[in-house]
């Protein structure tokens, strides 16, 4: 994260952002991975992940955030999340029906349990997080092109 004093907010905001943005991202990942054990899950965790990038964009300006996740990468990852979820649904056909939970259920209260549910959580979080960030990115880029005119 190069410090360019011309873009983004003040030095205080940038310093605090540098400290917190990783923690926010980690918290989002935690919420996603523990979706089958604790409240939260793919949608909420995905929104938190998207918010960490939005935070980055607000504090440092759009160029640094775009250098982390460009618009094309965002659309590709979003499509990948959708395809992953659909693939998990189709895997159920191996056991007989759509969305059948065919993986090993494991013991309750353990991280690796509940079959396909954690995988679905990851797919949905990818979709939701990158999708919402792409919407924000599109709005910001539109505003930028308007200013250039």
């Amino acid at each position, binding site marked *: 994260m190069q410090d360019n004093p011309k873009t983004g907010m003040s030095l205080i905001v940038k310093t605090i952002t540098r400290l917190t943005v990783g923690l926010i991202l980690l918290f989002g990942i935690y919420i996603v991975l523990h979706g*089958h*054990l604790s409240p939260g899950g793919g949608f909420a965790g995905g929104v938190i992940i998207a918010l960490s990038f939005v935070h980055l964009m607000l504090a440092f300006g759009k160029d640094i955030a775009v250098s982390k996740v460009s618009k094309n990468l965002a659309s590709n990852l979003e499509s990948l999340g*959708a395809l992953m979820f*659909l693939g998990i649904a189709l895997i159920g056909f191996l056991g007989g029906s759509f969305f059948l939970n065919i993986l090993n259920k494991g013991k309750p209260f353990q991280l690796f349990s509940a079959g396909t549910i954690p995988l679905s*959580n990851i797919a949905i979080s990818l979709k939701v997080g990158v*999708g919402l960030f792409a919407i924000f990115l599109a709005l910001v*880029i539109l505003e930028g092109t308007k200013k250039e005119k």
Partner: protein
Amino acid sequence: MELHILLLFMIFAALVAIEVKDLLSSVIAVGSVGFALCLAFLVLKAPDLAITQLVVEILCLIILIRATISKDLPLVIEGRWVFNTVSTLLFVAVFLFFSYLALKELPGFGSPIMNVVKKYLEEGITKTGAVNLVAAVILDFRAYDTLGEATVLFTAVIGIMAVLRRPGRKKIEEKENAG
């Protein structure tokens, strides 16, 4: 079988929506696609999604009709009041008949409506292994509904990216050549 009829109807209505010249007719054709999709969700046993689809479709239709109603509306009122009145009465009668049949099927007041939920609560952990019962419901028992919601979000993102994209390089060159 019902699903195939609905899918064919949806394809036909979508083609009508593209081909028809009148803007309002096109909007109504799009609306019929949405309502057919709602029925398809009911056939596929995803009632929550069907309700969402119905409500969103009604809201979209209201907005779209409100946007197109002042554009080109060949509204003919005089000279057809007999046909209009008869068709209105006919539709009211059909609606009342079907709502009578539907209301007869509802469970009586005070009888338990939690049958499905009870089953989820009892068998949730053993059947899915997930401790968080909400995750078990939305990603296992009702995963089809979640797939629909993911599709809604996907379509929304695609639409926003398409509407808010940068003008292409070719278009800018054309503008420069013209100007």
